[in-house]
């Protein structure tokens, strides 16, 4: 992808494009390139954002206004946030940017009105590693058309100027110069079942197991915590399923007719039925292993299975909680291997 493109297609992106397409976008590109089934899409790049910002700055200052803020003055921050977000959402986009988004949308949907998209912010540092992007995880599901897509892209950009985000940057003295936001636009999956997968245990950090959580409908219900998902723990290498916690899933999130999503009550027989079959669990495990191998480290993955039963990956990011811990040897090394047996024979362990 050239450095000054307003959009970048997943197929053309690599993990190294993170500075211009954000962590989410770069990861989706990398996965696509690795042959993993990812719903197709494109990223509105930070370059597009910079072009817009330039246009905004031409009428009134943006970055200098933020840098001049006193983080402790909540009223001032709130007032500026309101102003800037309104500007981002309403002032005209540079034609070049708007056209790029509309054309890409047309290409993605092939003009099919029935095809909807998800619009998600893609921060330029790894999501979980940088708290400066806390609260910038905007996701708009079931976005119906091109105009609505542009509107949602602007809202993602606008979140850079939320009270929370600006306060954080000012408190930490971060320069506004580097602040930018990419936005992912991806074909929506009408999920039968969706959820998350960790390629290590979130509770013990064990890298030999995969934990899968899933529920009926769109994955947003799982991510937001509105439904207690079914939970499985399986051997990463062996595939044996050691935990099957099937929960009472009282609702599922499904597309709303006018765009967006809504909660649908579930009949009793579905509420307590497992949302994934064993074959699907094994397919998830296989793809989880592949992604982990590709990146060389444990992953935190969002996935969906569409109505036709196809498994699709929506997102993958490195696991950070356990990976950040110091890696001390499991047991003290011994020159003489036999000394190890004293852990069994030598007394209290």
């Amino acid at each position: 992808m050239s450095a000054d493109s307003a959009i970048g297609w997943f197929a053309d992106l690599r993990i190294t494009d993170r500075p211009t397409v954000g962590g989410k976008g770069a990861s989706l590109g990398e996965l696509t390139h690795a042959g993993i089934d990812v719903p197709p899409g494109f990223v509105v790049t930070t370059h597009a954002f910079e072009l817009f910002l330039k246009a905004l700055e031409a009428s009134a200052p943006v970055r200098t206004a933020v840098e001049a803020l006193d983080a402790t003055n909540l009223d001032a921050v709130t007032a500026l946030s309101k102003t800037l977000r309104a500007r981002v959402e309403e002032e005209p986009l540079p034609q070049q940017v708007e056209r790029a988004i509309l054309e890409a949308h047309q290409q993605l949907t092939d003009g099919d009105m029935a095809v909807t998209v998800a619009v998600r912010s893609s921060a330029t540092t790894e999501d979980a590693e940088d708290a400066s992007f806390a609260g910038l995880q905007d996701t708009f599901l079931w976005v119906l058309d091109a105009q609505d897509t542009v509107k949602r892209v602007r809202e993602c950009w606008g979140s850079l100027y939320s009270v929370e985000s600006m306060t954080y940057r000012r408190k930490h003295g971060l320069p506004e110069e580097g602040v930018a936001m990419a936005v992912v636009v991806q074909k929506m999956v009408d999920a039968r079942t969706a959820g998350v997968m960790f390629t290590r245990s979130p509770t013990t950090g064990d890298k030999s197991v995969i934990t899968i959580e899933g529920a009926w409908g769109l994955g947003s219900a799982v991510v937001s915590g509105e439904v207690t998902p079914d939970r499985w723990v399986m051997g990463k290498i062996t595939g044996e399923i050691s935990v099957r916690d099937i929960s009472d899933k009282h609702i599922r999130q499904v597309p709303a007719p006018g765009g967006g999503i809504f909660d649908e009550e579930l009949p009793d027989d579905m509420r307590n039925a497992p949302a994934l079959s064993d074959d699907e669990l094994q397919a998830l495990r296989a793809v989880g292993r592949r992604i982990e191998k590709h990146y060389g480290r444990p992953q935190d993955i969002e996935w969906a299975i569409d109505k036709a039963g196809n498994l699709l990956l929506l997102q993958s990011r490195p696991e950070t909680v356990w990976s950040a811990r110091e890696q001390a040897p499991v047991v003290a090394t011994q020159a003489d291997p036999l000394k190890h047996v004293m852990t069994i024979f030598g007394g209290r362990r």
Partner: protein
Amino acid sequence: MTMADAKQFPLPSSLKVVPGTEGAQAAYPYFTQFVPEDDGKFWFYNSMHFPEPMHHFDMITAEAAYVALGAANTRVHVLPTAKGIEHRIINGRVYIGGVAVTDPAEIQERVGEFQQRAFYYYEHWERLYDSWKEKMKTLIADALALPKPELPDYEPLENVHAGKGVAANHALLDIYQKQIEGYHRMWHHHFEFLLLGYGAYMTFFDFCKKAFPEISDQAISRMVAGMEAEIFRPDEEVKRLARRAVELGVDTHFTDGMNIEAVLADLDRVGNAGKEWLGELETSRNPWFNVSSGDGFYHYHRSWNDDLSLPFAALPGYIDKIKAGANIERPTDQLISEREQLVADYRELLDTDEDRATYDQLIGLAHRVFPYVEGHKFYCEHWYTNLFFNKIREFGALLAQNGFFGANGREEDVFHLTQYELESAIIDLMLGWGIGAEPRGPRHWPAIVAERKAAIKEWAKHPTPAALGAVPDAIDDPAIVMLWGITRESLDRWLAADEEGPTNELKGFAACHGVVEGTARVVKSVEEIGRLQQGDILVCQVTNPTWAPIFQKISAAVSDIGGSMSHMAIVAREYGLPAVVGTGTATQRIPDGARIRVDGGRGTVTILEEARVLEDA
């Protein structure tokens, strides 16, 4: 129930002898009877090895095993923190308890001794194991050479002319004592390597559990499992016989529910092909059909050689598969490469070079010791034990023939005598033969045998507590942890189980993963194996590799006894057959014919539907 009570199993002194069985209880040796001081110790019921009330003779298995295990742990390898295992018998049930070493100075001293002894074994493992096999083969040859005990009317003339100078009645005592001596010797051999082998395995196991806190026991077992182990051989022989039957064109003789005697007679009649197959059968039988259909700890765990029904039950299925062009060979190369892949895949998950170095050391040691851990059972519990009980059976036949068990006495009745009583009965018979007068046995033993038969029947009706006495804070005895899989956690589970109401779910060890629903076939003995239909779920008490040939027929397996390293678990994993072992009570709680779900990944069995459809008459 108060919190204090919750940590306490019944005291030994509170356990009463079942009324009416006092005589049978008193006949067990004095040193196996509970005494008041035993209330101060912790005991658990050895349901793993002795799940049923013991015949008085069979008690020798506990006795000889604990003589040898104790010596190995206490005096030979000198385990630092544990000595031997004490045992007590009540209502035919064997309770055991470990003797811990707690004095730090003594532990320190024993560490020094242990390292000089055990480490030598680890370092010279292959050579010592080779010589172990030779010792076992010699021991087996000696047992095979023991003549059948017989009493002629007159001493054979040639013995007299040869100046033998020892009469035929002396041979009874000689054979008996040699056989008892051999059994004890076998158990010493049995424990020569066992704890060290399990210890090396447990060291790797322990490392894996630290490195991978959620790894399943079965995954670790699969990394260690041997590929050439003797336990697979009997099943391989059945497959070979199926193949030979097809090659020789005699396969149509083998059908489900066949009369084995008739089939053997037919094969003998149908010409060279039939005779050739019978020759192949003989080749397989010696030694590979010396496998016990149980764990080999009871006289009634007969071997395939004594009862061909098990291997023959498997023949039609294997023959069908061969004729359908299926490959039924054990894919050893594939199994080896799968194991290597598994070891490599887990290694790759380790975080540090230090861990990878330790992992390599420990898996190397585990692979080194494992042929013994898996292989010894064939020589000890199967082959030798089978010879041993059959020799005792010969004494039973001789005594029965001499009226010792009454008018309707059977050779099996001999197992109602303790080994000490049996020696006295033999001497009684020797005296009678020598004196030329009637032995006293025929008037003495029938009533005793009848009393004990009734006692065993009665004892079997009374469940016995899983453990007795105060729960120890920790279980540090490596023998108890390794051989019985008992930990502080499992004791807490037992205590909790007593408090729970009835449920339709049973828990055990997850032996091989997979979920299957089907019809439970509760098989209490080998004779019932014919009842298994294609796709049934086998529910049995003791799991054993000799049942492997019927694994082709079943869809899952459940057992009362066994851990994730039990032989059945190993074989189930080979067949990819979902299995839950060590449920404790499956054969009691699951009604025959019930619909059940087996989850071999979680180690649970769920009774879905107890009601059985009544068959039309």
